[in-house]
């Protein structure tokens, strides 16, 4: 139970005199407020034309830095909805030793954008970009392969 003395009944409904009721005082107060708001600056952003920048911490579309990925499968393991898929091989093809990913795709249609993969990646190869425009015309396009993940997907920016 709370320690406050709020158990005392509070008259919840405001009392009004007859004159106040008859002259619609509270209604006019409300109308005065809305009238003032008519002339105040507006807060909305005209989206396709103007874009608000997001905070750097924002978890947008996933990207993978192909050159640093060591193919450790941690992101695939931690992903709660299994949207990351990769296969890694051992080799020296890309000018570095150790494992590298040969096959990597992320299904953004399933992604939760929870950031767990970013958190577990030991080499900070997979990360959330600040890009949030991920709408596509068909589901297959929501799947980003290693090429797209590395270089970023094409965003069709609205012109006009």
């Amino acid at each position, binding site marked *: 139970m709370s320690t406050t003395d709020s158990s005392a009944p509070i008259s919840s409904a405001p009392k009004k005199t007859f004159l106040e009721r008859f002259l619609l005082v509270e209604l006019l107060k409300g109308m005065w407020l809305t009238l003032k708001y008519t002339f105040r600056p507006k807060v909305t952003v005209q989206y396709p034309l103007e874009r608000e920048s997001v905070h750097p911490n924002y978890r947008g579309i996933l990207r993978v830095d192909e050159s640093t990925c060591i193919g450790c499968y941690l992101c695939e*393991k*931690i992903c709660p909805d299994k949207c990351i*898929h990769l296969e890694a091989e051992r080799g020296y093809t890309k000018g570095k030793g150790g494992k590298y990913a040969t096959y990597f795709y992320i*299904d953004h249609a399933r992604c939760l954008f929870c950031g767990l993969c970013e958190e577990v990646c030991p080499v900070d190869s997979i990360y959330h970009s600040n890009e949030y425009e991920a709408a596509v015309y*068909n589901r*297959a396009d*929501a799947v980003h392969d290693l090429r797209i993940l590395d270089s970023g997907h094409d965003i069709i920016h609205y012109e006009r």
Partner: protein
Amino acid sequence: MADEPSNDSAEEPAAKPAAEEKPEAVAEKPAAADATPAPAPEPEPEPEPHPVTAALTGQFGDKVSDEGEDQCGTPIVRAGADDLTEVMTWLRDGDLKLNYLSSVTAVDYTTRDPRFDVVYHLYSVGENHRLTVKCGCEDGEGVPSMVDIWPAADWLERETYDLYGTEFLGHPDLRRIFLPDDWEGFPLRKDYPLEGPNLELLTRQQAAFRGGQFDRIRGEQAINEQEREMAGPGVVGALWVPEPPADESETETPDQEGD
């Protein structure tokens, strides 16, 4: 935490080592691998029963058994299905004033006998104490309904019935609440596959998608073979196929991750 459970029960120490003994764990950054040093286990030789449990056992004797406390310090008791109504009525009207039924659920211990535990979480608005009551329930049998004692039990029991299939005898309207009336099986049972029992059906849908119909949806930009291989089957249908596709994967296994 403000109210770290001070009266650790016998179960508590068991939890700590288990939590810590796994350094090779699917490794994340090794920085904080070590947990808080566990509060020194206090192996009390004879754990004092919680006053709530004591009051209850004092009233009912053998009909209820003390099961210790959970990690929040809430006492747990177990009662038989036959005595449940009597015990619960006393809990509400008696000295403990547990007037608030917080939640009803069940736990499926597949191999145990009885298979289910129906769990009631009680609370006293005013006295501010909690109690967990458990009652065993065999598959196909039931426990008495609590609707007459707490009206709140109505939907909570329907939910439990819907997801576990435990009957509540005397419930006025025991129907499924979330799932469609003609749903087969009870999803939260441990033997119910994660992705549902109609896996074969879904796979067929998926195959249909992957075959002709999907291309129709895509129209002129028909997906080429390479792209399809790259995209993998998880893209198209509603289901995820765990392995990268070698060829047509007709059979799918339930999600095995987490084991």
